[in-house]
């Protein structure tokens, strides 16, 4: 440690960004949506997006995750091989392939992310089959392993998710998404609608998966405590715009924008 040694440990990380939002705008006829969104997400990093309902969080997530084309702006992604690509410059089929292989999407409502009437094992196996695995025994074994990894009984592999509790469905959704070893996971209010104790289990699971698997994630939440626990970088949205962004602790402990100050002071323990 020599003060004159001028090594740059953190090189220009934005060059290695996994996902980059460049001036994204998507508006609905009502004028709602998101406008002029810019940020970079690096490998291993978790980005939190907070804001009240109607602030454009979910619209933004849909654009970022390849589900809705923006009116203007770009979503740039660097894939496993290191190729940079413009998400909406890809063909529909290549975009879908990316979604199935390198990305995961955990929906707020498990029914949007699961097939409710096929077994838990089939839900987990579906993504594996989509990337070419066919061996039934392997699929089943992987399925059971993942159920264990998300704190579920492996014996539940033949049960349909419609028979599960909300927390179990959410964990199954996570297993289904992580089975193909994605590099980036999008989550829309992953703990919304769950009991506090179930939330805690899920949060603990998400946190350890991020640390152990080196995942990157973009998490939309209205819960500032969830953001504090999981996010390295926080974005605050209001009326479709990012009004504040930066280090999570800094945004929550020293908010600059009047709206963020209000948001932080309105909760019991941020």
């Amino acid at each position, binding site marked *: 440690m020599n003060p004159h040694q001028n090594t740059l440990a953190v090189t220009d990380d934005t060059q290695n960004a996994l996902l980059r939002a460049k001036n994204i705008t998507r508006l609905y006829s009502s004028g709602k949506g998101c406008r002029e969104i810019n940020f970079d997400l690096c490998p291993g990093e978790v980005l939190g997006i907070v804001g009240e309902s109607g602030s454009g969080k979910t619209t933004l997530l849909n654009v970022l995750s390849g589900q809705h084309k923006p009116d203007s702006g770009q979503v740039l992604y660097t894939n496993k091989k290191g190729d940079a690509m413009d998400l909406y410059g890809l063909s529909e089929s290549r975009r879908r392939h990316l979604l199935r292989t390198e990305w995961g999407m955990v929906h707020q409502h498990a029914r949007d992310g699961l097939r409710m009437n096929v077994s838990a094992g089939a839900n987990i196996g579906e993504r594996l089959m989509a990337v070419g695995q066919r061996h039934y025994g392997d699929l089943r074994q992987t399925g059971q392993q993942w159920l264990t990894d998300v704190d579920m009984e492996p014996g539940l592999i033949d049960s349909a998710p419609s028979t599960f509790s909300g927390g179990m469905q959410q964990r199954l959704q996570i297993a289904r998404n992580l089975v193909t070893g994605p590099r980036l996971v999008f989550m829309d209010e992953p703990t919304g609608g769950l009991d506090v104790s179930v939330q805690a289990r899920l*949060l603990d699971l998400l946190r350890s998966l991020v640390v152990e698997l080196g995942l990157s994630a973009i998490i939309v939440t209205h819960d500032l405590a969830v953001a504090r626990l999981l996010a390295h970088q926080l974005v605050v949205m209001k009326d479709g715009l990012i009004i504040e962004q930066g280090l999570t602790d800094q945004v929550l402990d020293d908010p600059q924008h009047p709206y963020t100050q209000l948001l932080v002071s309105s909760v019991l323990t941020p």
Partner: protein
Amino acid sequence: MTTDLHYSSSDSSLRVDVQNLCKTFVLHNQGQAQIPVLQNINLQVFEGECLVLSGPSGTGKSTLLRTLYGNYRIGSGQVRILGHHGWTDLTSAAHREINHLRRHSLGYVSQFLRVIPRVSALEVTMQPLLEQGENKTFAREKAIHLLTCLNVPEQLWSLPPATFSGGEQQRVNIARGFMLDYPVMLLDEPTASLDSKNSDVVVDLINQAKARGAAIVGIFHDEEVRNRVADRAFNFEQTDLQPQI
């Protein structure tokens, strides 16, 4: 992260450099009230020493510590910290650089443990090493060693600290804070709710950290503890903290 070729001091043991730091909080929802907490703070902390922040409560000691950790933005002036990978200028550092500095080089022990639901005391303690990519066995051994030194009963190790007493939580927090040999450490009343036996352990840990070269900035309410670890003091004066509207 900046590299400063025109660095003014020639002392190569400098670790923390604060120049003309000012910090004012503006409360937009309370009539734009302005609370000037830090005014023209200048201080340097060197390798192997403990600088104690002293002064009456409400004079900005904790604010300074939290500014050094990056929780508060720099109002004006400059704050630079030398970590394992060179200087980080907190004035201009991106969130990514601050996270990097914290993970590898900057330790922080507050009075309160931020409890993570469902995570056991042992795992909470192991975390800083695991986040470095250290192997679990080594992290576990070190965590057990520190929890034992700090007299955290073994039957508590596997339980989440949410239900522990204040003193027990604080000892878990201290164990966690000393898992890594950080070159710079910030301590905010680490002995606040400890008995004298455990305070002694913390004093030993601080002195060991100094001996290996850590630069430490701390707030210690307990005068005896303060006298046993402090090399120098930085006095905060009573300033008029009335909101200016």
